[in-house]
C-alpha cells in the first residue's frame, strides 16, 4: 500500500514539475514582450505637441507638384525628409479640393490650387507605414535603443489617425463635398511618379460653404 502511495506521489510530483517547467507561447508574443518603451505615450505627445508646428509649415500640394516639375532637386531638398540613405522621401502637404469619389479604400480629390490641380487619393483604409513620423522630420532614430521601439511609434501614430481622423470624416463625406486636408506623402526621388499620389491624412475637414 505504501508503495502505491509513494508511486502516486512520485507521479504527481513529476507531473507538477513538468507542468511548471514547460510553457508554450507564440514566437511573436515572446519577442513583443521584451520592450518596456511606451510607444503610445510617445506617439500621443508627438501628435499633440511636435506635429502641429510642422503641419503649419506644410507645403500646398499644387505648389509642390509645380516645383517638382520646375526644380526637382529644390523640392526634395527644401520640403522632404527621410531618416537615412535612399530614394524614398516624405513630404508634409496640405490643400483643399472637391471629392470626386468615395471608394472602399480611399477618397479621390480634385485639388483646388493656383498651381497644379492634380487628382489625388486620400487613404482611409490603408493607413500604415512611417510617412507621418518621417515627414515631420522631428523624430530621430538615434534617440531609440532599438528600431522596434522606433517602429512602434509609427504604429501608434497610425492608430491615432485611424481612430480620430478618419471615422468622423468617413461617416459624412460624399461625392461633391469640398474638403480641406493635410497629411504626409511618399515619393521616390529616382523613379518619381506624381500620377497616383496617396496622402496619409493628419487632418480632414468638410468645408461648409
Amino acid at each position, binding site marked *: 500500500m505504501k508503495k502505491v502511495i509513494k508511486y502516486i506521489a512520485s507521479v504527481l510530483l513529476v507531473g507538477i514539475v513538468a507542468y511548471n517547467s514547460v510553457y508554450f507561447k507564440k514566437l511573436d508574443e515572446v519577442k513583443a514582450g521584451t520592450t518596456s518603451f511606451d510607444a503610445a505615450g510617445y506617439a500621443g505627445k508627438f501628435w499633440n505637441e511636435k506635429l502641429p508646428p510642422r503641419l503649419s509649415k506644410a507645403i500646398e500640394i499644387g505648389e509642390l507638384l509645380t516645383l517638382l516639375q520646375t526644380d526637382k532637386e529644390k523640392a526634395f531638398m527644401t520640403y522632404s525628409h527621410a531618416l537615412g*540613405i535612399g530614394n524614398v522621401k516624405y513630404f508634409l502637404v496640405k490643400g483643399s479640393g472637391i471629392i470626386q469619389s468615395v471608394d472602399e479604400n480611399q477618397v479621390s480629390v480634385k485639388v483646388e490650387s493656383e498651381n497644379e490641380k492634380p487628382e489625388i487619393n486620400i487613404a482611409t483604409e490603408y493607413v500604415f507605414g*512611417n510617412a507621418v513620423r518621417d515627414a515631420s522630420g522631428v523624430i530621430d*532614430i538615434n534617440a531609440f535603443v*532599438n528600431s522596434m521601439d522606433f*517602429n512602434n511609434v509609427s504604429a501608434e501614430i497610425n492608430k491615432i489617425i485611424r481612430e480620430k481622423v478618419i471615422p468622423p470624416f468617413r461617416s459624412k463625406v460624399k461625392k461633391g463635398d469640398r474638403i480641406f486636408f493635410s497629411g504626409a506623402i511618399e515619393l*521616390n526621388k529616382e523613379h518619381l511618379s506624381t500620377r497616383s499620389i496617396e496622402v496619409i491624412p493628419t487632418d480632414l475637414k468638410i468645408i461648409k460653404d
Partner: protein
Amino acid sequence: MAIVVSTLNNPWFVFLAERAAAKAKELGYESKIFDSQNNTSLETDHFENAISSGYDAVLFNPTDADGSVVNVKNATAAGIPVFCMDREINSSGAATSQILSDSYSGCVTIAKYFVETLNKKGKYVELLGLVGDNNTWNRSKGFHSVVDHYPGLKMVAQQSADFDRNKAMEVLESILQANPDIDAVFCGNDAMAMGAYQALVASGKAGKVKVFGFDGAEDVVKSIQDGKIIATGMQFPEVMAQTAAMMADQYFKGKRDFPKKMPVAVEMVKKDNVENYAAYGKK
C-alpha cells in the same frame, strides 16, 4: 579591415561581404572576410582573432542582436571601431555606427500589397528568419502591423526557417501536409521565398499560392519577372557595405561623430516595376 559576416551560405551576404571588401580595397585598405556560419561562438572567435591580429576596424554583419553585443563591446574596448551592416545589435552605444535596412517600412509596403492582392481574405503562412535577429522581427512586425487589421486573413502557421532556403522548403512541405489550402506565403527573406516556391512546385501548388519575399536577391528578381514570386523588398547591400567602409576610412582620418544608426530605405519590387531593378539594387 576585418569583414565579419553572419553567413556565407546565402548569396546576399556573400555580395555584402564582397562589396565591403571591394570598397575597402578601393580606399587603399587590406581586408579579410570571416564567415560566422550563423554561430555566435564562431563570431566571437573571429573578433578575438581580429583584435589580436591588429585589424584597425571591423565591418560587421551580426549573427544575433543580443548575443553579438559583447563582441562589439570587446572590439570597441580594444580601440577598434565597429560598423554594423544590415543587421542591428541591441545596444545604442556599442557600435561606432549601424547602417541598417529599414526592414519594417519595407514590409509595411509589401503587406499593403499582400492585403490588396489577396483582396483582404485567405489563409497564409509566415516563414520567419533567425529568431535572435532584429531584422526577423522588424520584418514580421511591419508585415503584421498591416495584415492583422484584416480578420479575413488567417495565419495558419508561423515558423522559423532561419533565413535558409532548404529549411524553408522542408518547413513549408510539412505545413502543407496539415494546411493544403493556403493562399499565400510571406517569407522574411528571398532565400526562404525560393525554398517555399520549391515546396509549392513539389506539391503542385505553384502559381496557386502567392509567395512574397524580402531582400532583392537575383533569383527572386528573375522569378518576379517570370510571375513565380509576387513581390520582394529590395535592399541595397552595396550601399550599406560601401557606407560602412567609407565610415571606417573617415574614422581612420580622425572623424568620430557618426550617427549611431543610419537607415537605408527599402523599395518594393513587383511585376509592374521590376524593369527598374536588378539583383541587390537598381539597374
